[in-house]
């Protein structure tokens, strides 16, 4: 197990470096130096040349890539000329908020989806199963902005239970935590969309598990249905969910642009969107790199977690 983890970690580092190099090269081909972001589109050629020289953009691409990767290893992602801040500062400001929003939504989604999926499996083909299926399919097919607008109209503008958007004073994770009403609708929006997918996976997994011999044996032993479900079904049925959750980790920081935009909650998704609009290459690069790292990390965590949860799995 230890050797496996070490090998996977080494591979993750190599992949992350590769992501950084490829991303840098692609953006370089697409947009070249960020000099025009820094100096404006009508900067004179002399100033452009000087700026490129000072910032190393006159060097061969391979050297630029090397410099970028080395700086990225040191968590130096450059400077956003569009936003007047270092990229690291921008990530630092936004990552926590996005992680809180996405993490809370993920937890809420799991709390709802796991029992819902199991209940649907146990009561499969019943009225309640069909009703839950209809609701989850509806949510699954619903765009985030549409669901968000419905929730805002109903709970904020009509019933005045929650605010329609997050106050601009809520700028830190702590502030988000201490103002639960502000984040309720964004979290519910994200969670509702996630519940739909998770509950379907859970239902399917539970149905598979219910057909296994060990469930029949447990029932044959005379165990109560509650014990059968709690002790024998849940752990086995949850194994696929571990992988799903692991793959969802990149989403924690990759952001939820629609929700962030709709509810006035600035996070990484919005940062990326604005960087894309403004051709803010340093931010785009850092964002892509972080997404790559988190994808690798999510896979790694999922594999290890599955191995830990299921003793039948032996890693080579």
């Amino acid at each position: 197990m230890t050797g496996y983890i070490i090998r996977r970690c080494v591979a993750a580092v190599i992949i992350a470096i590769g992501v950084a190099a490829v991303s840098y090269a692609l953006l370089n081909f697409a947009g070249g130096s960020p000099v025009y972001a820094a100096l404006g589109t009508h900067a004179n050629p002399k100033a452009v040349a000087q700026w490129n020289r000072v910032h190393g953009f006159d060097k061969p691409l391979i050297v630029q890539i090397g410099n970028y990767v080395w700086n990225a290893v040191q968590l130096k992602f450059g400077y956003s000329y569009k936003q007047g801040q270092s990229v690291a500062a921008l990530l630092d400001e936004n990552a926590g908020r996005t992680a809180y929003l996405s993490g809370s939504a993920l937890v809420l989604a799991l709390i709802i989806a796991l029992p819902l999926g199991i209940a649907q499996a146990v009561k499969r083909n019943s009225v309640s199963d069909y009703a839950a299926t209809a609701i989850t399919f509806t949510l699954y097919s619903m765009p985030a902005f549409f669901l968000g607008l419905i929730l805002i109209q109903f709970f904020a503008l009509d019933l005045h239970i929650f605010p329609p958007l997050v106050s601009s004073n809520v700028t830190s994770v702590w502030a988000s935590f201490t103002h639960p009403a502000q984040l309720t609708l964004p979290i519910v929006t994200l969670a509702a969309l996630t519940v739909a997918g998770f509950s379907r996976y859970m239902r399917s997994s539970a149905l598979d598990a219910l057909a296994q011999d060990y469930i029949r044996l447990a029932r044959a032993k005379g165990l109560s249905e509650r014990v059968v479900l709690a002790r024998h079904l849940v752990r086995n049925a949850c194994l696929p969910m571990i992988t799903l959750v692991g793959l969802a980790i990149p989403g924690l920081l990759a952001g939820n642009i629609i929700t962030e935009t709709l509810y006035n909650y600035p996070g990484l998704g919005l940062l990326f969107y604005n960087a894309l609009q403004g051709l803010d290459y340093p931010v785009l690069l850092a964002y892509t790199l972080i997404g790559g790292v988190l994808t690798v990390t999510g896979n790694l965590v999922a594999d290890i977690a599955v191995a830990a949860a299921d003793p039948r799995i032996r890693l080579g």
Partner: protein
Amino acid sequence: MRSSWGSTFGAARWGRAVGRTGAQRSRRVFVGGAVAAVALLTSVGSAGAVTGLFGALPSAGTAATGGTITFGYLTGATPLTVFPITSDAQASVYTSFEFQYDFWVPLYNGPDGQNQEIDYAVSVGKKPIFSDGNKTVTIPLNSNYKWSNGQPVDANDLVFDVDLIQAAVKETPANFSSFTPGLFPQNITSISAPSKYTVVIHLAKALNPDFFLNDELESEGAIVPLPSTAWNIAAAGGPHLNYTIPANAKKIYDYLEKLGSSISSFGTSPLWRIADGPFVLKTFNASNSSWTSTRNPDFGGSPKPAYNALDGVTYTSQTAMINALKTGALDISTNFDPSTIIPQVPSLKAAGYSVYGYPDLGLTDAIFNFKDTTDHFNSVIAQPYARQALAYLEDEPAYITGIFKGAAGAAYGPVPSVPPTPFTPADSVNPLYPYSPSKAVALLKSHGWNVVPGGQTTCAKPGTGAGECGPGIPKGTPFKFSWAYLTPATQAFESVISEAFASEAKAAAGINIALSAKAFNFLFGNYNDANPAGAKYTNDWGVEFFGGFTDDYWPTTNSLFNTGGTYNQGDFDNATMNQLIHNSVYGTSTSAVTQEASYVAKTVPALFAPNPDLVYAVSNKIGGTAASWFALTQYQTFPEYWYVKK
């Protein structure tokens, strides 16, 4: 003349252009509503008088004392620098008009209500005096302005600003967004302060006084007296330097520019709290660019703000801002594109808001590429009759009614019909080439074209004589070209107008237009014959439509339609035009720019389109003068004229 850099609504005035290069009164993005607009367009006629005024201005009411007014921003369209010498890269209306000028009063400022001219009541400078064949300019300053550290705003503060601008431009012209090669500040041979409230500028070459005043000294407020006794440092706590020495000016500029570009310094550096405007910046949230300011007790202008605080609040989207408005959480919105806000008007009115709109002073135009040799388009479009025929095919009244739902003003030349300026020519109000497909067809036929409505019109009579197509147009040449417009993902109206126009041109006159959508940066940077990098794209486009440009108060098309102009993207080349523009810039006539605008309208170097309104929502709890609400539609905030109602 500057490109109106469209921000999107988000941001940019991408769109009418996402961005102007100068002080960037960028135009807003018009996103969405395209399909509906097309449908509407098909159902409306071309009748109907349109003034450009949409809705009704907020009512005045009675001012209460105290309170806070909140002003909305959109993420991605927030201030990028607090230092009032703004670079190309940082210039936007959100940086200057809607932020810096709340704290630092420009030398010359405007508009004066609806009228697009300098308002000396909100300017540090009085009307300048020109002498010595217009090579010497004496600028008297009002003596009533004070810095918040108690020092008076005097002539040295203006000299300080100009010295820093000269240092900035010497480093790179991109450091000063209002820079035009050979003009301010390069044309200044000396600047001095012979008395406490008088500045004298000597110019290397005489300029038209109206041009120098309205486009250089006013320059959309880019000349701003700065606190010369407090900001003349090159390091925090460093010694105060003699800024008249160029080397010192450079050090000071470098320091202030770097500090002013660091968002974290906005709300923390004591330098930025030394202001002469109606408000003083108090805090700036680096996380979301929201800010707070307090009333400046030392403000020397009039009226003094009746309320305590002006706060800028940032929203992540128009939708979020509209929801905030519906709950009464925001007093004054950012400007919306008509397609977004007009459907919301009933609910906003019900929520206690006034919604109004008015066009800003600028031009919206589809630019012809006079170098595109594809299908001899360069030769075809070089013919004035061909351009005039295209103008006849443009149904502006229908566009205004159908696409903009009334929230736009007609524009038939570089000066729109609204808002009014002292220099608007008659043919900007009464078009020379009003919508008339039959006249377009007749014009083409009279010049040797075989017009096939719904098919392909071709040149039937080549040659240079009367009734022939013109030089460089062989027999059988099709009247067809490519047309690239701003992607509707950024702003919708360009695409809808493009589709409507192409449809009309094909159906009525057999002119075939191949449409494509492109990003603003691609269009502005590459479909640009004035940019060396655009050479390889020269034959890729016949027309581009990214939005337009914003006018200065002396609305010359210098740099836009003169040969070699910085923004002459289609390489229009006309000797008469060059002379008229030269007269506007270097002549003495007070009607030069009117004559120039009239000639532009006549020769059609670009296809002019309606000028969209900037639409605002203002809470009924907030009052203000009508002039301040009109100013808002020119991206200009005069918050001292606002108040919380009793």
